[in-house]
């Protein structure tokens, strides 16, 4: 009988009288990749924080390599060999890639100053081991979220960890980067590191992990080998529902039927260009239609959304609503014309954490709720109550601060903020990212329902299945340009992937198929 690397023994934790964890146990063995799944609020984050010393358990204990431990703070846990990679990248955006990689343990020269040359060299070597090639002197913040995440992973792994906790590491990675991560996880397994893999994605549970623990409402609902279970069973355990009930819903909660629409588009974006992000992108959205934007990370999906909403300037191109071209397009103009958007980065661009649920919901509707500049409490309350009920936002009171809500409920607050404007078109950028399974299903059915009622929707998702099942028409983007438009029965995961792949191949093959001679070297 080997000693587990981490042995959590029936820990409990309460916050202000609310039980976050109730007698939860977890054994994490060396050389094992152990999935930790559960809806938001199931207690995953609390469990991680108990292990890494952010919190202390009210009851029970945590053993590390057989010894009871109580880390005073996360840094002590890290020094002892427990590395955590958080969902949100925890690095310094203004400092260079290399500085971030070596933050706090920079190589120094004889004078005790940072030896940049060797630091940059070491950074390049470390990153190339994981197949990342970036200029390590560039500020981290200039890179895509996916790359930032990989650098966070690389940083954690380069600190000689015995235990690695990954908190939804793939939530901002594109498929290619997920493959990269799979390789990293394999390496960890071979090196007998214990990995606790927290995720919302069942794919990854089956792909990466040997065992899985399901938490529900602060209790352990299941622990067992991945091989002995099915997706359906896991989903059922997470939701605490009957298996037949889940099967009825399918993987997503979108209905199968595709709506066909005709007539003039409600929102029409023509020839949007913004170097180097967008290249002549045209998107039409009809009433009652869900248009999906598919593509890899960095393909221009978010940039298209922001340009359509007037949030980013464009070099050329125009946006028209109901057949009229609008000048001076801005988010405020878009909202006035019945176009709403929910941004990809909920925390940075969506919620205002310090304001209440009510204030967040009515934010965009302020001009409509004021009389002579003053707000009517009753009208606000009516509006907020309506949408809290309709979207089933779980709040203790609408005075509660938004930052206290789970990701799923924050997302619903943002949906409510836009829906209370009664928009004609709604642009949704990753509406179900970082959202628990239950809220995800609710948001997906809501999108369907809204489209049925005549709302035009632009749906962006890095989960292929969501775009394919949710959209009536899918535009496939690559390098800021639309490379394929799929309609009706053509919309399938395979076709979308092929569109992306074919486009990539063609682009890669271009130089060799051109007949023109290679440009001459001017110095020759």
């Amino acid at each position, binding site marked *: 009988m080997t000693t587990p690397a981490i042995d959590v023994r029936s820990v409990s934790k309460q916050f202000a009288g609310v039980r976050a964890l109730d007698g939860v146990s977890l054994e994490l063995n060396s050389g094992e990749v152990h999935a930790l799944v559960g809806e938001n609020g199931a207690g995953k984050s609390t469990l991680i924080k108990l292990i890494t010393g952010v919190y202390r358990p009210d009851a029970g204990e945590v053993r590390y390599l057989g010894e009871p431990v109580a880390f005073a703070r996360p840094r002590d846990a890290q020094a002892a060999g427990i590395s955590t990679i958080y969902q949100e990248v925890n690095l310094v955006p203004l400092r260079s890639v290399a500085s971030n990689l070596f933050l706090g343990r920079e190589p120094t020269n004889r004078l005790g100053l940072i030896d940049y040359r060797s630091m940059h060299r070491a950074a390049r070597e470390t990153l190339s081991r994981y197949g990342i090639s970036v200029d390590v002197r560039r500020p981290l913040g200039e890179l895509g979220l996916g790359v930032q995440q990989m650098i966070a992973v690389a940083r954690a792994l380069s600190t000689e960890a015995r235990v690695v906790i990954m908190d939804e590491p793939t939530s901002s990675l594109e498929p290619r980067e997920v493959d990269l991560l799979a390789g990293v996880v394999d390496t960890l397994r071979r090196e007998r590191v214990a990995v606790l893999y927290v995720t919302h994605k069942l794919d990854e549970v089956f792909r990466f992990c040997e065992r899985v623990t399901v938490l529900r409402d602060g209790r352990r609902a299941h622990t067992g080998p991945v091989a002995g279970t099915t997706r359906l069973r896991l989903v059922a355990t997470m939701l605490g529902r009957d298996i037949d009930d889940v099967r009825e819903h399918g993987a997503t909660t979108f209905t199968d039927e595709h709506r066909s629409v005709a007539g003039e588009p409600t929102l029409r974006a023509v020839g949007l260009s913004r170097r180097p992000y967008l290249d002549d992108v045209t998107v039409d959205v009809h009433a009652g239609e869900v248009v999906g934007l598919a593509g890899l990370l960095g393909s221009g999906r978010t940039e298209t959304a922001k340009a359509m909403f007037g949030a980013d300037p464009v070099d050329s191109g125009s946006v028209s609503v109901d057949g009229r071209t609008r000048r001076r397009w801005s*988010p*405020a103009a878009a909202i006035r014309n019945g176009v709403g958007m929910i*941004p990809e980065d909920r925390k940075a661009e969506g919620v205002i*954490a310090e304001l209440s649920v009510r204030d967040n919901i009515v934010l*965009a509707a302020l001009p409509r709720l004021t009389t002579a500049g003053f707000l009517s409490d009753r009208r606000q309350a009516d509006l907020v109550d309506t949408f809290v009920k309709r979207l089933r936002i779980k709040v203790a009171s609408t005075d509660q601060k938004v930052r206290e809500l789970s990701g799923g409920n924050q997302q619903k607050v943002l949906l409510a903020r836009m829906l209370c404007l009664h928009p004609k078109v709604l642009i949704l950028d990753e509406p179900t990212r970082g959202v628990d399974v239950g809220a995800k299903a609710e948001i997906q059915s809501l999108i369907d329902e809204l489209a049925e009622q005549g709302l035009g929707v632009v749906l962006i998702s890095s989960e292929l299945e969501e775009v394919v099942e949710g959209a009536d028409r899918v535009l496939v983007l690559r390098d800021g340009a639309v490379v394929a438009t799929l309609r009706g029965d053509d919309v399938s995961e395979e076709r979308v992937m092929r569109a992306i792949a074919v486009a990539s191949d063609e682009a890669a093959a271009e130089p060799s198929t051109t007949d023109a001679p290679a440009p001459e070297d001017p110095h020759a």
Partner: protein
Amino acid sequence: MLDTLRRRRNRADVLRFLQVGGVYVATALILAFNLLFTPNFATLANLRLQLVQVAPVAIVAIGMALVIATEGIDLSVGSTMAISAALLPLYIGYGVWPAIAVALLAGVAVGAVNGSLVAFAGMQPIIATLGVLVAGRGLALVFANGRLTELFDPTLDSLGNDSVLGVPISVLLVLAVAVIAGVVVRRAAFGRQLLAVGGNRAAASLAGLPVKRTLVAVYVVSGVLAAAAGVLSTARQGASDPSFVGLLIELSAITAVVVGGTPLSGGRVRILGTLTGALLMQLITATVIQQNLPDSTARMIQAAIIVAAVYVQRGRSRA
């Protein structure tokens, strides 16, 4: 084990209480101290004096609190007071009210410059208003030919020194400004926009809020309030003194705001806390003077309180 837990929880509770209520406790303590140990403190004349003296700082601090709620800062308030004070004698020939109107309009203008630099030119508030701080005082001295001008106007005099029902007019003015600011923050769309812009500018912009207009407006408000404080100070002294009026008041105002529990990181504002913060700083100075201690003592006590206030705020931002 249980004991340490309880102690930790108590500590967190105490910290949370201090974040909101610390300024009130400190003010109550210093009042109690003075009532017990300072002779002639509890006289109507002395209490009234304290309130009258704090009035200009309090008015400026309320504007400052609103600016800080947008994650900004306004260093130019002292110079705005000087400009407003310098303009009064130039226009008093047209009557006292037109002169005051001109002074307040100058506050609007200074605020509009600050706001435009921040909102449209995208400058850091601290740099933009620092520039105006320097230029504004210079401009005021140009207006006034660098001289102190005595003013003998009965209306202005009563504005500075008279009372209604025993309450000095300047104090009533402070209360009016505070009530209006409180109502605006709580009930007006502008107040909500202010907090949204300060709390998360990107989100406010994507929600279609007029971010730039809100920023300009908040600096204009701060400018007008500073100009009003300039009028008040001039009225009280019976003289326009652009070289010294409002000198370093920006620091007192920022102190009052921070001590009053408004975080510098924006998104929140405490009007009553700001008023109490201003009063607390005034009482510290008064106590030290009346106890015959050197002025430097007052400064050190104030500094300690500022550090403590920022420390307590830090606790909140981590929570």
